[in-house]
């Protein structure tokens, strides 16, 4: 009971009262107006600095002041135009109103096609187009959420500067919009001083957890992996010396089997801690500002089914796939496949976990994409394709099993729970072989996998 009270300190009325007494002046000052104003100012900074840092990475994109300014200005204009479409959603043409997300993505691909068909001598506009092609994938899902709010009639009354908070988030994140869009953030925004205090304490809890997971990563690095860090040095240079998975996979069938098994589980723990640490940092900032949104990672290593792990591992990415792929496909197929519910579920799961997942990763290969190297994009994503395919199969089977249970809870026996958790760990540890960064060829990964079972 004491432990629970300690870990749930942000919900403890006494702690909340203490925080309110201690930080009263700040809680009074950080009204929705001020917190949003600070985030808008941060967003403008990000909107200017991020495209410039993207441009620096690609030589062909403009690196002179005028060219860079044009890219930033054009990106602002594009965001503003999409905002206008959002707030005037009902006056858009019927086809666009029916398929706003599809329209957004088709426009982007149309833009890319034009950029691909320009020649290097086409002048400064080509460089500006390349700059936009490089940066817009970072914005596309955020614009998608903005359009989504327009579609549901919840964008009216929001201002463009406020939308910038989520379009160019100063609180961080990846191409995946943490905290989704402004509409979602607003639902969780503190309206009273008490709610703000509660949200900030929840943010502090996440910062503590992020620090702990960071420590965990440092210890893992020092104790498990070589050549080691200051933890290894503190241990007199001793380390267990398990090679990390990326190193082992390159050996294909030649990797030592038992070490490989240990390494794949270590990699899973490493990935979870890494994602949790980074995600907690982002969500903590949002909570400190009074947006008490869900965590990005919530105890995935305790998940007892594959779909539950997926739900808890990378929440905002899962939400992206669910919102933009799973739900639209599941709803649209309702009429056609009502009599085949399993096929309907299969189609929706594959649309999200396979097609959506792949499409998301395809858009992340910005440099190849901007230069029109479609073959290069597909070739470099072979392992990602296979990973997404296995993930989709796993989630589908897991959801099907849940449906077959018909609402009956799983056995609460400790051994049964441990076995289920172990099964989930094993599944994700194995499929992560194809999700590792680096250029290890696809078939080398296959041989590594087969070698785990003595088949290579």
């Amino acid at each position, binding site marked *: 009971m004491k432990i629970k009270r300690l870990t749930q300190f942000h919900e403890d009325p006494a702690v909340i009262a203490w925080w309110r007494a201690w930080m009263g002046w700040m809680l009074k000052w950080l009204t929705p107006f001020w917190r949003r104003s600070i985030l808008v100012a941060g967003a403008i900074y990000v909107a200017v600095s991020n495209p410039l840092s993207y441009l620096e990475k690609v030589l062909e994109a403009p690196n002179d002041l005028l060219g860079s300014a044009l890219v930033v200005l054009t990106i602002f204009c594009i965001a503003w135009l999409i905002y206008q479409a959002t707030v005037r959603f009902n006056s858009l043409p019927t086809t666009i109103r029916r398929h706003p997300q599809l329209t957004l993505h088709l426009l982007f691909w149309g833009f890319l096609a034009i950029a691909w068909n320009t020649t290097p001598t086409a002048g400064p506009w080509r460089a500006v187009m390349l700059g936009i092609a490089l940066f817009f994938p970072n914005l596309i899902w955020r614009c998608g959420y903005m359009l989504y709010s327009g*579609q*549901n009639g919840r964008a009216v009354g929001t201002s463009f500067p406020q939308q910038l908070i989520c379009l160019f988030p100063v609180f961080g994140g990846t191409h995946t919009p943490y905290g989704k869009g402004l509409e979602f953030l607003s*639902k*969780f925004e503190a309206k009273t001083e008490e709610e703000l205090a509660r949200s900030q304490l929840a943010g502090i809890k996440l910062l503590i957890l992020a620090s702990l997971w960071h420590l965990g990563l440092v210890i893992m690095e020092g104790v498990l992996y070589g050549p080691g860090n200051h933890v290894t040095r503190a241990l007199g240079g001793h380390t267990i010396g398990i090679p990390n998975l990326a190193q082992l996979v390159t050996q294909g069938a030649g990797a030592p089997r038992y070490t490989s098994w240990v390494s794949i589980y270590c990699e899973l723990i490493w990935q979870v801690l890494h994602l949790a640490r980074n995600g907690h940092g982002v969500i903590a900032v949002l909570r400190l500002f009074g947006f008490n949104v*869900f965590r990005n990672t919530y105890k995935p290593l305790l998940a007892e089914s594959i*779909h539950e792990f997926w*739900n808890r591992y990378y929440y905002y990415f*899962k*939400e992206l796939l*669910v*919102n933009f792929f*799973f*739900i*639209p496909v*599941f*709803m*649209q*197929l*309702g*009429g056609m496949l*009502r009599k085949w*519910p399993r096929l309907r*579920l299969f189609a*929706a799961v594959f649309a999200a976990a396979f097609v959506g997942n792949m499409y998301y990763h395809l858009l992340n290969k910005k440099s190849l994409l901007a230069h029109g190297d479609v073959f290069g994009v597909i070739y470099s994503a072979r392992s990602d394709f296979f990973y997404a395919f296995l993930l989709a199969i796993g989630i589908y089977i897991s*959801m099907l099993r*849940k*449906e077959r*249970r018909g*609402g*009956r*809870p799983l056995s609460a026996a400790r051994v049964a729970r441990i076995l289920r958790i172990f099964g989930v760990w094993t599944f994700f540890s194995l499929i992560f072989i194809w999700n590792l960064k680096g250029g290890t060829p696809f078939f080398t990964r296959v041989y590594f996998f087969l070698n785990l079972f003595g088949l290579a």
Partner: protein
Amino acid sequence: MDINEKTKLRTFLQSCLVERGDRAEFQDDESLFDSGRLDSLTITRIVVYLEQEFGVNFAHVNFDVDLIDSVQAIESLVDTVGSH
């Protein structure tokens, strides 16, 4: 939605919650998804239930999770677009 249908709906939603280890009671106006008590993958079960029990055709509904976020919201949805 009559009282029997509503009771049946509440029992069904309760089973969705129990499956996630949540045995706490819920009010008619209480959020189920925004509160995090149900996750977005549970949407499929609720959608299929509403299609089968109330003839709601989601292909013609501009779906948003808020439409099924509480018993009240579901009641309102069924009364508006349900065919029973």
